[in-house]
């Protein structure tokens, strides 16, 4: 009996989160509208509890559990800790925003926690089945979150698009997985890697499978040419949901890609590298160019996400430990910046007013020098100007690319990030060079301000001393691969 229980031990954080979500669902149904904070507090407690459980059993070696479906390694533990962090920050940022728009309900928190659970499963999966289950749990929760604002036609439209395209992507992914299964006879990543390393005669089905898998992954990442849903969903969803979609799921998507391509299909790097090169270059080109034309900040950041995902793919396509480590560093840094960027929109919004137009940032330096300064740090970090952490993210990725001899790709990447610099600088220009046209006081609550300060300063502090985070990434990748 004890043997039966111990094999569940590596999945303790997941089990805890699931139990808590069910509990919150029941409790929230029983309390009246004046006590909605119960769900909020319990959700934060859930995240903290899961973080404690993960940190307590921080693994030093990869451990396969549940019959090879589930893996607990340093990579998954580190990523989970960052998932908790970003989900908790999202909740703090969005509380006021949700309350002002009548969305401060148990559903948001339950869906967010289900999404978190899905992401946790994704980062800890070592089997196509668990990978897919985690992905679907995440995606279904996100579809519902986007549609949560029922009376908004834009949000409903966004949810519909998200759902249809997401379902299509899942279908492609499954199709690709089934082909790989046909070639290797296994769904477990370890066995697939083993089988493929020994060589196979079934090249054509294998390559077809990889193409479908990469296309599915590109959909989920939002890489060009599978990016169409990103701007519409980011723009249409309530900002709190955009914040959620733009942060933690990127971390999970990184894990997803690296598990499938880096662990399962490692020996086929020659096949998928060229595909990723195309995806990366197109994403950086289109993302950066299209972002220039946007007047809505959410839409602009959506295109910026596309270009950042392209940049992150550069690290993965290197196909080396260095590359995966740099991509991991990049995605964690990106999540941090994205939280800050969308969080700032939430902080500046108030009842009946969305601060999501570029012009709403005009003269922010006069209204609140501190928030303007934090946003300045975030924007320069997105450009990749030292001494902010965004620079080291770019440096690490470029280094991985040059290491495999793709100097031209590094040159292309920096040229596109030069294009990108323009629209981030424009935000700084609006905040610092222009006079405000919105003079109403900023009504953000103190706890959100504190978290935002920590968020912005972390970008600077990690920029001055990037070593700790970099060492964590290098270590996690080094042990897990």
């Amino acid at each position, binding site marked *: 009996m004890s043997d039966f229980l111990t094999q569940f031990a590596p999945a303790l954080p997941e089990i805890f989160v699931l139990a808590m979500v069910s509990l919150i669902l029941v409790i929230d149904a029983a309390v009246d509208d004046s006590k909605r904070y119960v769900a909020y507090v319990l959700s934060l407690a859930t995240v903290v509890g899961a973080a404690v459980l993960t940190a307590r059993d921080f693994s030093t070696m990869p451990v396969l559990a549940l019959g090879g479906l589930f893996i607990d390694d340093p990579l998954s533990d580190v990523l989970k800790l960052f998932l908790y962090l970003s989900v908790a920050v999202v909740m703090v940022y969005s509380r006021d925003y949700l309350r002002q728009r009548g969305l401060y309900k148990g559903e948001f928190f339950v869906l967010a926690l289900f999404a978190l659970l899905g992401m946790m499963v994704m980062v800890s999966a070592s089997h196509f089945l668990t990978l897919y289950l985690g992905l679907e749990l995440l995606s279904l929760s996100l579809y519902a979150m986007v549609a949560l604002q029922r009376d908004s036609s834009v949000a409903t439209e966004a949810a519909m698009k998200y759902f249809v395209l997401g379902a299509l992507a899942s279908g492609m992914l499954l199709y690709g997985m089934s082909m790989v299964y046909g070639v290797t006879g296994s769904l477990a990543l370890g066995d697939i890697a083993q089988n493929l390393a020994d060589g196979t005669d079934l090249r054509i089905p294998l390559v077809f499978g990889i193409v479908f898998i990469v296309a599915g992954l590109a959909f989920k990442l939002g890489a060009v040419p599978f990016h169409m849903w990103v701007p519409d969903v980011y723009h249409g969803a309530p900002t709190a949901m955009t914040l959620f979609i733009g942060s933690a799921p990127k971390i999970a998507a990184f894990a997803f890609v690296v598990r499938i391509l880096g662990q399962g299909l490692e020996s086929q790097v020659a096949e998928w590298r060229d595909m990723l090169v195309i995806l990366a270059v197109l994403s950086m080109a289109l993302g950066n160019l299209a972002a220039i034309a946007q007047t809505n900040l959410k839409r602009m950041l959506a295109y910026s996400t596309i270009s950042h995902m392209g940049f992150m793919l550069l690290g993965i396509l290197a196909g080396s430990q260095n590359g995966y480590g740099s991509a991991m560093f990049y995605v964690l840094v990106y999540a941090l910046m994205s939280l800050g960027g969308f969080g700032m929109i939430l902080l500046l919004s108030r009842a009946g007013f969305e601060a999501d137009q570029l012009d709403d940032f005009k003269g922010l*330096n006069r209204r609140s*020098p501190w928030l303007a300064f934090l946003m*300045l740090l975030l924007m*320069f970090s997105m*450009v990749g*100007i*030292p*001494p902010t952490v965004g*620079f*080291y993210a770019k*440096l*690490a990725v*470029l*280094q991985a690319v*040059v*290491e495999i001899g793709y*100097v031209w790709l*590094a*040159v292309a990447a*920096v*040229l596109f*990030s*030069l294009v990108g*610099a*323009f629209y981030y*600088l424009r935000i*700084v*220009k609006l905040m*610092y*060079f222009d006079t405000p046209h919105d003079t109403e006081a900023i009504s953000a609550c103190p706890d959100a301000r504190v978290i935002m300060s920590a968020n912005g300063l972390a970008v600077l502090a990690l920029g001055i001393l*990037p*070593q700790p985070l*970099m*060492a964590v990434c*290098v270590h996690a990748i080094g042990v897990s691969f």
Partner: protein
Amino acid sequence: MFGQSILSLVIWVPILAGVAVLATGSDRNAALARWIALAGALLGLIVAIPLATGFDTGTSAMQFVEKAAWIPAFNIHYHLGVDGISMPLILLNSFITVLVVIAGWQVIQDKVAQYMAAFLIMSGLINGVFAALDGILFYVFFEGMLIPLYLIVGVWGGPNRVYAAFKFFLYTLLGSLLMLVSMIYLYFQSGGSFDIQTWHTTTLGMTAQTLMFFAFLLAFGVKVPMWPVHTWLPDAHVEAPTGGSVVLAAITLKVGAYGFLRFILPILPDASHELAWFVITLSLIAVAYIGLVALVQADMKKLIAYSSIAHMGFVTLGFFMFNPLGLEGGLVQMISHGFVSAALFLCIGVMYDRLHSRQIKDYGGLVNKMPVFAAFFMLFAMANAGLPATSGFVGEFMVIMAATKVNFWFAFVAATTLILGAAYTLWMYKRVVFGKVTNPHVEEMRDVNAREILILGVLAICVLAMGLYPKPFTDVMYVSVVDLLAHVAQSKLP
């Protein structure tokens, strides 16, 4: 107690002072912000003095070295040190920072704390550029200084400031990003090191050298700025506040020229020799053509901006003569131009504060109303034209001599600057200072006050001292320059 970390102090004192100034907050505490800024700038200058007094002119090795692991994951170090090339530039920068703080004392009334803080932080970052011996550390300082400069031009600049700020930022970013890729390439070629001195001995093939030569040339050429990538400078200068123009001309341009000596010449010697004709051509175009462009400017700041480009053409010309005289001449010219251009922009600032115009045609007959100012302005105008006994003469003369040794025609074209420089500077001076007072507003102009006399007086002493007795400067540089030339003479082809 701080003997081991002078360079760190030189970098971090101004930056921390800048943060302290920011902490004073809104304009209600403007006076406090000004005094903290002045104290910080002075302290920054004082901690830099040991660099001069304790400097050993007998060695070309790096001095005041500090080294600590910074990002072990990439073998990046916090590695500082100075030689005879970088030490004078750090002193120049710390000195100019004090002047800039004093110059902005009354003129800047809007967001004083942010203005002062931006200058102090930038000053610290520029010191970092000159002191860094690790490629990535250099890059961090090199790029980091764009942020305060972008804000200085954009927030406190003139009517067309937004355009100028964007142009300046994107131009320089283009160059530096390509340099970053080159640095990463060097990292792998040198067996995993970002150490600049290691790069000096790394073997490199000709193709790689040529490509990297152009990448570095773009990065540093934009900053210098060299023709034809100079177009951001007149815009940025015209729109920047006085302090911004001073720092741009006196310091940031030197960052670009410094990069030639620290990176291009010693790391890519073969490409440098092979492509010297290219740089020399660009430099001569800058000297002759930009001199002509300066002649027709109607805006004083633009005129001085173009004159800066012409003078910096001299600097790059001197570097690519590959002899000690040319290199030293270029370096002396850099320091001299730091003093002279700073002084000229401050002079224009003095006039602008009173009349709110930079157009030459709005002035005339200034000597009747501002005799003391006219005298100072005269000295600096002469120095800009390269009159003997001023610092402007020394560098130009050395470079022309060096060019004569290499090729008579180089020297011939370069020497046109003596005519053109005198023409555009003195013609401007004549139109602004002499003649009848035609603009009624000039009648109301008051002469320079004590604060302005202090700034201009200190600069006048520097200009004259360097012109009469340049030996201390050349002594400091000599050994490092000879060592650098030894590096450049050595082929690094595999």
